């Protein structure tokens, strides 16, 4: 044999040995360990979830000698987190035992067969009766079974810097009644208080569902009944004026430079910047944003800001032209679910219950500034006193909308993100972007669409 022929042979043998060795290093089989996958904030200073999970892990390991909790943080923007979690759940080798799922994706993952139903377990769990019906529905699939336990929800509205508004000659208790009021205020601020960003509306593909729900749908749901999906006809809506109007609003904000610089607006980390830079540093006048922002400014937050309760005001997001009920909000939230291929579902369920003892549920909702989904938590004094404005955002629950909980929703959301980005950069007019959305929607919904 020539000496050169030897090299590939050795290499091949080495590779075989290596790959065979890799095969048995899978960790799926350990009966005493629960692998918990969750999304860690991309801001390294934000560690509420990690802290909370660490503490429950310690409690749990103390109460269950010999059992181990392995936290698997995935530090990524939400879109990438979901992709990673889905890939993990595809195989028994990598599937976690417990996974944190955004309610807007859970139906899609249920349909894909990644999750196992929890009904039998829920039936014998007395805390389940404490959950409010809308929250229970969040993780219920088309087959009527429930696949996840929600740990809180959220609402959305307008946050504003009272000082900047006063300097622009606007009232400190500003309450816009329609879209025009918001744009007028933003234009006034732009003219009278130079150097600040008048209004932030999250937009674009990179920001993902945060932009679609918090930016676009907060507008869209103010344009009429069921503007995205008609549940009675089971059809998605194409060609609506409301859709174009909402895009036109976004176009106005960025076209007239009432918002942040477009390149900042399209940065995937813009929502963190709003909370930790622009608002606390007085660079942003009005933010269309979520109920949880206060979590960033507390003593353990990413950006300590003791003055925020007096510095910021809150207003409900109005409908397009003041039509009833005059206010609009959207709600989401996250749930804990057990993957179908989990190696250790029993123990995972025990850990889930440990996270949802009344004391831990309160602690979590307070730490993460969640709106409670359990009546016992909602009544808890610690929760009610946890954050200024929590009563305001809890009050928005009566006006809130939930996104169509359907398996294709994440794809619809992605298409909306593209339409938003196209009008934000000015690549398309609202009309063109809406038309291209309609085309995508027909494919995604496989023809289940209705024109309006």
């Amino acid at each position, binding site marked *: 044999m020539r000496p050169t022929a030897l090299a590939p042979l050795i290499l091949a043998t080495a590779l075989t040995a290596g790959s065979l060795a890799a095969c048995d290093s899978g960790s799926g089989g350990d009966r005493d360990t629960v692998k918990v996958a969750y999304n860690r904030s991309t801001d390294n200073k934000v560690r509420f979830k990690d802290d909370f999970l660490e503490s429950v892990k310690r409690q749990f390991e103390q109460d269950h000698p010999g059992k181990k909790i392995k936290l698997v943080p995935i530090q990524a923007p939400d879109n990438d987190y979901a992709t990673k979690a889905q890939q993990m759940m595809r195989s028994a080798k990598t599937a976690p035992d417990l996974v944190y799922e955004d309610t807007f994706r859970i139906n899609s993952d249920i349909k894909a067969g990644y999750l196992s139903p929890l009904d039998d377990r829920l039936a014998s769990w007395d805390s389940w009766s404490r959950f409010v019906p809308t929250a229970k529905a969040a993780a219920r699939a088309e087959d009527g079974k429930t696949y996840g336990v929600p740990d809180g929800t959220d609402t959305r509205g307008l946050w504003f810097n009272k000082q900047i508004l006063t300097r622009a000659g606007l009232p400190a208790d500003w309450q816009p009644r329609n879209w025009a009021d918001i744009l007028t205020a933003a234009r006034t601020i732009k003219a009278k208080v130079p150097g600040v960003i008048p209004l932030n509306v999250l937009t674009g593909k990179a920001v993902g569902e945060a932009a679609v729900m918090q930016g676009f749908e907060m507008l869209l749901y103010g344009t009429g009944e069921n503007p995205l999906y008609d549940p009675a006809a089971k059809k998605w809506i194409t060609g609506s004026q409301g859709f174009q109007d909402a895009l036109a609003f976004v176009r106005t904000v960025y076209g007239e430079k009432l918002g942040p610089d477009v390149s900042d607006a399209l940065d995937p980390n813009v929502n963190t910047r709003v909370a930790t830079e622009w608002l606390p540093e007085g660079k942003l006048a009005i933010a269309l944003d979520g109920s949880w922002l206060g979590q960033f400014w507390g003593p353990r937050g990413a950006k300590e800001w003791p003055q925020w309760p007096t510095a910021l005001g809150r207003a409900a997001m109005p409908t397009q032209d003041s039509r009833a009920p005059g206010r609009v909000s959207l709600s989401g939230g996250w749930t804990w679910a057990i993957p179908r291929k989990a190696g250790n579902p029993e123990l995972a369920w025990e850990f889930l219950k440990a996270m949802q003892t009344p004391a831990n549920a309160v602690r979590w909702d307070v730490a993460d500034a969640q709106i409670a989904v359990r009546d016992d938590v909602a009544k808890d004094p610690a929760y009610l006193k946890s954050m200024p404005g929590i009563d305001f955002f809890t009050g928005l629950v009566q006006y809130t909308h939930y996104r169509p909980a359907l398996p294709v929703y994440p794809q619809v959301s992605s298409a909306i993100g593209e339409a938003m*980005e196209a009008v934000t950069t000015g690549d398309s007019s609202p009309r063109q972007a809406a038309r291209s959305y309609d085309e995508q929607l027909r494919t995604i919904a496989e023809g289940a669409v209705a024109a309006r």
Partner: protein
Amino acid sequence: MRARPVRWLPLAPATLLLLLFLAGPIGYCVWISFTDMQLTGSSGTSFVGFANFRRAFADPGFRNAVWLTVVFTVLSSIVGQNTLGLALAALMRRASRPVRTLTGTLVIAAWVLPEIVAAFLLYAFFRREGTLNAILHWLHLPTQNWLFGLPVLAVSFANVWRGTAFSMLIYSAALAEIPQEITEAAEVDGASGPRRLWHITLPMIRRSIGTNLMLNTLQTLSVFGLIWAMTRGGPGRRSQTLPVFMYDQAFLKSLLGYGTAVALLLLLVGALFSVVYLRLMRVEV
């Protein structure tokens, strides 16, 4: 030749491995590209024939990605890395030893850096408050929002910055192979520098040019991390090359089948380039 089964024996493990780890996944990919497999949202997978391919050709996003991929490849690989690599290699032959070592180290350092690290470095260089604009500002030159205004140019430059070392090494080796006496003879005959380059150097390293172009192009066609970290294919779709488009469809839109079909089409683009280069190399002097 008579078949001697024994002779195949040493090759068997390698053949097996190739089938298992190379042909296997490729075959699986080809199969996926003919199905409607999704990452989430549907449990069943069914055969859909050429639907994914038809969809790609009708998709303006795909056509946009093909065009951007060609622009990116031509700009960064064929024009940028290739010419710059040759120029560096030629200049370094004449340079003094310290200059040669320093240049070589710098260029190769960029090559050795992990892609994602290079991507973040260049992101920091090109971003609005980045180094490049700071320098331009200091020189009183107009600044630009590079990643937003000229994303393809920015990522192409990044790819040149990162990948030139490879061309430089290939060309250094090729130039060293040219017999000294041929160059000297040409010099004695009075051939000028450009003429020597055109009539002697380039023809003599033609095979290296072909190899280099082919490897460079294939590598550039599949660049993903660099673009993803710098621009995510944005703004809009203005720097969405095929690999980024594929990722977007397969993983963000969950359309594994469609994404894989796009990946196969990318393979086809690479194959086309390769055929051209192979022909270039085959022509005799």
